[in-house]
């Protein structure tokens, strides 16, 4: 193992290592950062939600966007799978349907970064009884 020689050295090392626990820190402060939920039930997975989720994680980390990407159950929009719900801090959650790997990258670059609404928004049509869980 290489020895750490200075404060600058240590900071460099810290920045390299930061990614290994950023998922934990972000999970702890989820309200303050972008939350992305990918519907991953049978219908979602069959329509290709897994590569979509990977694409979301990758483009967020390549653009240095702090985001919590989690999977969730079926939201009921089986016709529009894969579906992705994005909650930006201070914004209402928006559900996007028919997400492909390509579109996932666009969502990160356009919606998350520039607030540009893309096609395929599914209007919110339900109320939740419990926000705790």
């Amino acid at each position, binding site marked *: *193992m290489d020895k750490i020689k*200075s*404060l600058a050295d240590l900071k460099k090392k*810290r920045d390299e290592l930061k990614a290994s626990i950023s998922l*934990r820190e972000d999970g702890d402060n989820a309200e303050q950062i972008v939350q992305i939920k990918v519907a991953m039930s049978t219908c979602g997975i069959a329509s290709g939600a897994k590569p979509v989720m990977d694409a979301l994680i990758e483009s967020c980390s390549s653009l240095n966007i702090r985001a919590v990407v989690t999977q969730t*159950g079926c939201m009921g929009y089986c016709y529009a799978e894969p579906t992705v719900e994005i909650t930006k801090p201070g914004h209402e959650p928006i559900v996007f349907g028919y997400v492909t790997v390509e579109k996932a990258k666009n969502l990160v670059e356009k919606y998350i970064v520039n607030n540009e609404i893309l096609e395929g928004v599914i209007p919110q049509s339900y109320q939740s009884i419990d926000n*705790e*869980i």
Partner: protein
Amino acid sequence: MANYKYHILICGGTGCRASKSEDISENFKRILVEKGLDKEVQVVETGCFGFCEKGPIVKMLPDNTFYVQVTSDNCEEIINEHIVKGRKVKHLLYIDPDNKHEVSDSKHMNFYKKQLRIALRNCGFIDPENIDEYIAREGYAALASVLEQNDPAAAIDTIKKSGLRGRGGGGFPTGLKWEIASKNHADQKYMICNADEGDPGAFMDRSILEGDPHSVIEAMTIGGFCIGATKGLVYIRAEYPLAIKRLEIAINQAREYGLLGKNILDSGFDFDLELRYGAGAFVCGEETALIHSMEGLRGEPTFKPPFPAQEGYLKKPSNVNNVETFANIPVIFNKGWEWFSSIGTEKSKGTKVFALAGQINNVGLIEVPMGITLREVIFEIGGGIKNDKKFKAVQTGGPSGGCLTESFLDTPIDYDNLLAAGSMMGSGGMIVMDETSCMPAVARFYLDFTVEESCGKCTPCRVGNKRLCEILDKIIGGKGTMEDLEILKNLSQVIKDTALCGLGQTSPNPILSTIDHFWDEYIAHVSEKRCPAGQCKAMKRYIILSDTCIGCTACARACPVGAISGERKSAHTINQDLCIKCGSCYDKCKFNAISIN
């Protein structure tokens, strides 16, 4: 580096390990490999989450789901449901006792809402056996900046301004302690960590060492640089094998990175650490006794002055700080003394870790800002008294502390308020008692502990405490007189004034504070021969109700001393002179014919 989508954090503190949390992580790892998910899910064994009552704890990230009382049989279900299907395993979630709803995010639990974790910042968050996770959380940044500034006096000044006081119990200002040690010149000085946690019920130091050993190593190195010591010693009790193991791993990792040893971070400063094991004597928490024990001598205190800062380990200037004190130090440098001193009360800054125990719903380890009230700690964080019983008293400060009653529930907790209330901060043990606790018996319990732990060097402590214990036995045994109560008070005061070290000087505190707050209970024991809490055996009288007894002879056969007599099919009687109050007859009787007065 693998890009994990999920982290599973499992509590690896001693408490949860006792409930087999090691098996849980093994099982998780095995199932993940079987399912080919081991590249997507990281399993991490962390330090203590604090919510020991509900252990073993498993926390899922990034969605921050907190599973309680998990067994290794649940692993498969958690992976299948939570990881694969993205559904929470509802029956493992914490149930809010107030509204009976499941709570999945620990931030919404009453237990965590009011907590502020500074000393415990990394406990339950990082893998204590991996230095990289500590570095990723700003670890060793404080040390690096202190070394780069190369100004020990300025660093000491930062600690002074932060208002940090010793967390071991006394509350001596840490910055001032460092300053005194730095001004004494010698060819060798020592930085010592007191990890000889001895208060019954207190386990914060163990949890910090198990959950975040690097924070203590970093702080000791900073301290060594400030006072001019090149050697550090950790005095740790041998009963803490897991803490010792993790500390040893951490020390080796720090050495490999060049954060301990010669020429740390190329600054020219040398510092290294060694462990010294204690055999678990309470008095060795006293700094002079601790130093003697490390030197291989008997663990007995000596008169101060000379203070350890003048003549300590091997007669060289030494500085002794407690584990929790050290754990605060890196944060003070990283976030600034202004931030730290903005937390807490006027004279007690920062937070304090408390170990909640006794008749309380949420037993565990908590860290709260100074100035919080006992009511908030006991009823909000602690979830109130078990079985809906009534709160009677809370014992703080261990065997040196005292009992506080309901009238103190709204007093802000800090060093000075607790002292003024007749107790003390101590190391942070908090034992909550309900209405069924007999206070003279509680005092007797603590006295018994001090008698066991007295080193025997000075007479007031060796002989005096023994006598106090005997008088308490007399009172609890129903043979006490009013004169005994007077002797109890006087002797307590004499021991307080004349004992050599902190142990002896504070040993009568449990008696004095219970006398203060529960004088009527002492009187009831002595003059009425009655225990108001119904606990003292000697005051109990078992009586057979002649109307209800059918003469089945079950009680007479159960009585081990032959105190019950009577003809078959007619009411029996108990000979009170022979009765040893064992309760066997009461347990045996199927007709509720025996009553306890």
